[in-house]
C-alpha cells in the first residue's frame, strides 16, 4: 500500500481528468457518504482506546490482505502523519475536520485516483466517501456501494432490521447515506435570489453549506447541497429526490446567469474581467480572494467569454492552492502571512503566463 503524501501529490487530482460529466458547468462535484459501524464495538464517542485500535486493525487486515482491492490504496494512520500532511488531506476533502484535529486510532484509505476515501474511527467506525466529477450521484453511489458490500462480506455491521444501519448520531440512522453536490451559484448570488433558493431547499429538508463545510460562510459562490433525511426512503429514492432538486436549482442558476447577461451585461463582463485581472496581476492573494476571483473567471469560461481557458485547470486551482498545499510546494513554513499570500499570487501568475489554464 502506498503511504506517502508525496506520491499522492505527484498524481494530483487525477479524478478531475476523468471523462465523466465534463459538460457540467454549475455542478463541480458530487459526493456520496455512507456511515457504518461494527456491531462488536462501542461507537467512537464511547469506545475505549483498545476497541478503536481493534477496529482499525480489523479494517487494515482487509486492505493488507487484498480482500478489498487489488489496485493500490493509499493508507494513512493519522497518528503517524505530520500535521501539514493531514492538512493537505483535509484541503483535498479526503478527510474531515475530525481526522484533522484528532489522531488517535484514526486512519484513512484513499483509492489511487482519489475518488474514494474511507475514514476509520471518525464519528462512526467507517465513513465511506465517493466522489465524482460534475453531477453524477448514481456513479458516485455505485462506487461507494461496491466498497460497502465488499467490507460487509467480512465484517459484521451494527444493523437493526427496523431502524437500518445504526449510526452514532440518530440523524444518520437508516440508510446512513448523505448525498451532496457542490454547485457554483454565482448567478443566483449576484442577482440576489440565492437566499430564497436556500430557504426553499431548507424547507425540502436539504442542507446548504459553504464550501468549507458546516458553519463556513460562502466563499467563491460555492455551495454544498445535501440531504438531511436518511430514514424512511430506500437509497435509490434518496438519490432520486436530491437529483430532481439539484436539477431544478441548476436550471434556476442558468436562468439567473442568462438574465444577468441580458440585463446587466457590462456589470457582469466587468466583474469577470476584474476577476481575471486579479489572477493575472495580483501580488498578494488570500485563499478567500483566490476563490472569489476563480469564481468570476469560471463564470467567464462558462459564458464563453474566455474561450481559451480550460474549465478543468480552473477547477484544479480550487483544490490545490490551500495554505497547506502551498507550504508543501514551498518546502518550508512561511515567515508570515504576507510571504504566503505573495507565494500564492506568484504561483497563479506563473500558471497564467505559461498558459497552464488553457
Amino acid at each position, binding site marked *: 500500500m502506498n503511504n506517502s503524501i508525496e506520491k499522492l501529490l505527484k498524481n494530483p487530482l487525477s479524478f478531475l481528468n476523468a471523462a465523466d460529466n465534463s459538460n457540467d458547468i454549475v455542478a463541480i462535484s458530487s459526493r456520496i457518504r455512507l456511515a457504518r459501524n461494527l456491531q462488536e464495538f462501542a461507537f467512537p464517542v464511547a469506545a475505549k482506546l483498545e476497541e478503536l485500535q481493534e477496529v482499525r486493525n480489523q479494517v487494515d487486515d482487509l486492505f493488507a490482505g487484498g480482500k478489498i482491492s487489488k489496485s493500490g490504496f493509499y493508507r494513512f494512520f493519522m497518528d503517524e502523519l505530520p500535521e501539514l500532511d493531514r492538512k493537505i488531506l483535509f484541503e483535498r476533502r479526503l478527510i474531515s475536520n475530525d481526522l484533522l484535529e484528532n489522531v488517535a486510532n484514526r486512519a484513512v484509505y484513499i483509492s489511487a485516483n482519489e475518488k474514494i476515501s474511507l475514514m476509520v474511527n471518525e464519528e462512526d467506525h467507517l465513513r465511506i466517501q465517493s466522489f465524482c466529477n460534475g453531477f453524477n450521484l448514481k456513479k458516485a453511489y455505485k462506487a461507494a456501494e461496491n466498497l460497502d458490500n465488499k467490507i460487509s462480506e467480512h465484517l459484521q455491521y451494527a444493523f437493526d432490521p427496523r431502524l437500518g444501519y445504526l449510526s452514532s448520531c*440518530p440523524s444518520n440512522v437508516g440508510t446512513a447515506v448523505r448525498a451532496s453536490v457542490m454547485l457554483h451559484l454565482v448567478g443566483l448570488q449576484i442577482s440576489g435570489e440565492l437566499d430564497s433558493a436556500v430557504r426553499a431547499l431548507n424547507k425540502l429538508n436539504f442542507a446548504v453549506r459553504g464550501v468549507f463545510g458546516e458553519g463556513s460562510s460562502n466563499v467563491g459562490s460555492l455551495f454544498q447541497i445535501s440531504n438531511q433525511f436518511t430514514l424512511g426512503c430506500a437509497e435509490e429514492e434518496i438519490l432520486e429526490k436530491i437529483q430532481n432538486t439539484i436539477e431544478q436549482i441548476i436550471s434556476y442558476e442558468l436562468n439567473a446567469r442568462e438574465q444577468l447577461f441580458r440585463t446587466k451585461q457590462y456589470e457582469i463582463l466587468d466583474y469577470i474581467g476584474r476577476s481575471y485581472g486579479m489572477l493575472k496581476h495580483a501580488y498578494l492573494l488570500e485563499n478567500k480572494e483566490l476563490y472569489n476571483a476563480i469564481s468570476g473567471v469560471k463564470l467567464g469560461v462558462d459564458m464563453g467569454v474566455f474561450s481559451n481557458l480550460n474549465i478543468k485547470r480552473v477547477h484544479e486551482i480550487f483544490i490545490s492552492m490551500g495554505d497547506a498545499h502551498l507550504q508543501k510546494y514551498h518546502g518550508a513554513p512561511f515567515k508570515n502571512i504576507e510571504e504566503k499570500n505573495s507565494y500564492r499570487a506568484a504561483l497563479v501568475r506563473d500558471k497564467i503566463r505559461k498558459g497552464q489554464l488553457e
Partner: protein
Amino acid sequence: MLCDICKKNNAVIRIQKINNGKNVVVNLCADCAEKHKAHEHFEFGDIEIGDILDNIKKITKNLNLQNVFVTAEEVEEISKFPDDGKKLVKCPKCGFTLVDVDKNSGKLGCSECYKVFEKEVMEAIENIHRCKIHVGKHPIALRVDSPALLKEKIAKLEQDLQQAVRSEKYEQAAILRDELNLLKKSRIENE
C-alpha cells in the same frame, strides 16, 4: 410525588440505586427525612455532598432496603434532574447515560443504546426523519430473500397493530398503520 414512608406528604428527597439493572428508588418527605435525621447533614437546594453518605445509609437501613446507597456523583446528578432519575440509567455495553448523550450532542455510545434508551431515541428519530422505519438495503451478511424478510416484518407489524387496537392505544395504532402501509408499498414495488 408522595413520600414512600408516610404516604401523606410530598417527597422532597429522592434516593436511587441501579442494582443489577433494577431501579430501586426511595422518595422521602421533609418530616420523614427529619425523623431519620437527614436534615442535620444537608440543606435542600444547596446540598452538602460530603456528609450525605453515612446519613443515607442510616436512613435506608431503617427502611430495610438491601445494598442501597448513592455515590456522591450520583447525588450530584440527581440534584440536577430532580424529577427524572431515569437520566442515570447506564447502557450495559458502553456505560453511556442520557447525560452522556446530551454532553455529546445527541450521539449514542453503541448499538445497544438504541434499545436501552429506546423511548428517547425514537422521539429524536421521529423529529428528525419524520418516520420510524428503514426501507433501504441490508448488509450482505444479514441479507435474506428480500420478499421473505419483508413478509416477516409486515406480519410482525400487523400483530402489533392488532394488539394496539385491542388495548385501545389508538395513537400508537395509527403510527403502526402508517408504517405498515410504507412496507406494503415497498413490497408491491419490489415484486
